């Protein structure tokens, strides 16, 4: 193994793998917490384990990973049980119960730590609980030993091995019991009536969460744990409407968040000229996961803010185009010949707005209307032709006739079938005409039975 590669594996890849395993385990389970509105549970557990850690240290007198894990897992389970008991015995809702339990447990842990002689100066301090010690997860192997030897393995950080086991258990549990988790998360009542023990399945999920949180926060700290429980699942939820895909996507996002966050934290300051500088890797990963969520909220293809606005804008513009065509058709009807419509008048009639102006330009480009220096308009050119006038082309005329036909068919339908008064139907028909499919149109005017005159006595144009 070349020296730079060995250096990378020892100093960077090992902590990075630890971070990825922690992120994947948390994101996987986070899907079910977020859907069940229990996201705070991860926060609660990761804070409430502190007294467990201190107690384990006091009892065993060592900071071995196994001992710490047992103490923390015990405290995590106690938290889950205490929250559930508090919720059942009192009328406090789940969120408040979690808040009560984790703040009391965390405070208890702080007190125990102050009381425990000599404990304050070991690396088990509160900073460590929040930010983790990811940078310390390097592979402690003497440079004389090959990595893949017995001596090499002894230096491998045990936290990463713990994470590997916990992550594998989480992946296996979700893969095997996906159907059951989905059922209980969606409809616990049905689950019970079908004979699935909903309470047991929920408890099992909480045990897994406790295990994942405890294993992760030792390595990466509670801030990253909370971020990974919530951000990747929430991001994935923006991108899909199926739980299976949501879970897969959340795992992929967790991996990306962890790797990108780690590289930014360790290499970023160097690139910015701060040679040898580094920021907290766990903190950077949490920031990246929040950033990715933000991008998804804005840019997701269907549920994103931008996509939703774009759809609304497109609809408004299309409706404006159709309304302008219909206005021109009515002018043609009144005069018996092609007439012009001032762009300013059209925009005003449509309530102003940018969509109406863009609609005119698009109609011209599509060849449905053309610029005219008609009466009432002060000629083309000038201020972006906003005061010009347009007239129907042949193609536009055909579309306009079809639109007006649909409008008047709707008016007829609303009066005759729905029983509205004829002076009340114009606005409703205006709405409906923009959303009429070919099938609806044939239902409005069955073969041979199409009316010729609408309720206001206007002729319904032929198809």
């Amino acid at each position, binding site marked *: 193994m070349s020296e730079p590669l060995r250096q990378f594996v020892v100093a960077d890849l090992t902590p990075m793998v630890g971070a990825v395993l922690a992120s994947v385990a948390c994101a996987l389970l986070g899907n079910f917490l977020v*859907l069940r509105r229990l996201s705070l549970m991860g926060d609660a557990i990761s804070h409430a384990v502190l007294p467990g850690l201190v107690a384990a240290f006091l009892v065993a007198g060592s900071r071995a990973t196994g001992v710490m894990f047992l103490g923390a897992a015990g405290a995590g389970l106690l938290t889950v049980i205490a929250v559930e008991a508090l919720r059942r015995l009192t009328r406090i809702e789940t969120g408040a119960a979690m808040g009560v339990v984790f703040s009391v447990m965390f405070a208890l842990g702080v007190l125990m730590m102050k009381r425990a002689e000599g404990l304050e100066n070991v690396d088990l301090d509160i900073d460590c609980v929040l930010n983790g010690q990811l940078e310390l997860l390097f592979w402690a192997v003497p440079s004389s030993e090959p990595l893949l030897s017995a001596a090499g393995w002894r230096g491998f950080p045990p936290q990463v091995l713990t994470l590997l086991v916990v992550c594998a258990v989480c992946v296996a549990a979700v893969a*095997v019991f996906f159907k059951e988790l*989905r*059922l209980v998360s969606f409809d616990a009542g*049905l689950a*019970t*009536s*079908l004979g*699935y023990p909903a309470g047991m399945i929920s408890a099992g999920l909480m045990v897994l969460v406790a295990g994942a949180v405890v294993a992760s926060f030792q390595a990466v700290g509670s801030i990253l744990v909370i971020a990974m429980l919530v951000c990747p699942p929430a991001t994935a939820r923006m991108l899909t409407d199926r739980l299976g895909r949501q879970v897969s996507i959340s795992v992929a996002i967790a991996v990306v968040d962890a790797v990108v966050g780690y590289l930014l934290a360790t290499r970023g300051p160097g690139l910015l000229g701060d040679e040898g500088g580094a920021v907290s890797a766990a903190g950077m990963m949490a920031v990246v996961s929040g950033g990715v969520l933000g991008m998804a909220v804005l840019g997701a293809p269907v549920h994103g803010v931008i996509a939703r606005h774009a759809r609304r804008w497109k609809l408004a513009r299309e409706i404006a185009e159709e309304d302008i065509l219909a206005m021109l058709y009515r002018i043609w009807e009144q005069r018996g010949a092609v007439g012009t419509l001032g762009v300013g008048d059209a925009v005003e009639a449509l309530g102003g707005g940018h969509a109406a102006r863009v609609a005119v330009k698009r109609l011209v480009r599509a060849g449905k209307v053309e610029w005219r220096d008609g009466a009432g308009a002060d000629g083309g050119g000038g201020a972006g032709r906003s005061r010009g006038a347009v007239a129907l082309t042949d193609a536009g005329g055909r579309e306009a006739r079809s639109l007006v036909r649909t409008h008047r068919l709707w008016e007829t339908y609303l009066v005759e079938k729905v029983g509205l008064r004829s002076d009340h139907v114009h606005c409703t028909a205006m709405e409906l005409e923009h959303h009429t499919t070919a099938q609806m149109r044939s239902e409005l005017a069955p073969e041979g039975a199409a009316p010729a005159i609408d309720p206001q006595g206007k002729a319904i144009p032929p198809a």
Partner: protein
Amino acid sequence: MPALASRPEHSARSPLSIHDMTVAYQRRPVLWDVDYDAPLEPSLVAIVGPNGAGKSTLIKACLGLVPMASGQVEVFGQPYRAQRKVVGYVPQRESVDWDFPVSALDVVVMGRYAMIGWARPVTRAHKQAARECLRQVGMADLADRQISQLSGGQQQRVFLARALAQESRIYFMDEPFAGVDAATEHAIVDLLRELRSRGRTVFCVHHDLQTVEQYFDHVVLLNTRLVAAGPVATVFTHENLRKTYGGRLTVLEEAAQAVAQAARPGVSASAPSRGVAGAMTGGGIAGAGGGGGG
């Protein structure tokens, strides 16, 4: 525990026998000493009563979703636990989160989970059966749509399709007609009749007194206690409805208040008035069930 069938008043062939059921939330009694035997022949049974009368609670207690303080429930002469596979359930529509990332088909397939079993994958045959159930409720085209994109009536049909997918012998439905359009209401009625013709018995919590006679064969009138039960023609009378909705049993009401007070000593004796609705639904006892839903 002796089987109910050994008691002279209960029959082993009855789809549902309830003996002395009492349910309490936080020690406030919601159902008191309910005794009931469903008709032997396949029937559509309406469960009717004012808000807070314990209608949903009756269903949930039968299904083991809320604990009973006392009493027994038997389905075709066997304890409910042994008979889960023959009992289908349609909860209230509001009881689930319709933003959940699943399709209509996913929800219907859930009805077959008891047949599929633990940790087994959903096979194509089960999906096919679920599609067929969606077709029966007129939702075949919407099978792959996410459930939040369905109208209220369509969501209710998804729940019904899921119940069909359970292939049960008796069904409990909690307000299947609540908040649905006329077309869905007709579709549901047709489906209920179809189920009856296939030999199923269906129990529906029902709110619309106008349609009880039109839709149902039997009726259970409930207001904390069982007021009356039997064929609609003989039981659904003005006298019984007055007892169910208007009857003020003052002593019993005071006792229920006292029980509730004893359980929660911190609360003042003058519970806030439930207003006109409270007065109309028989006051305190009906109000006592308020915590448990209608």
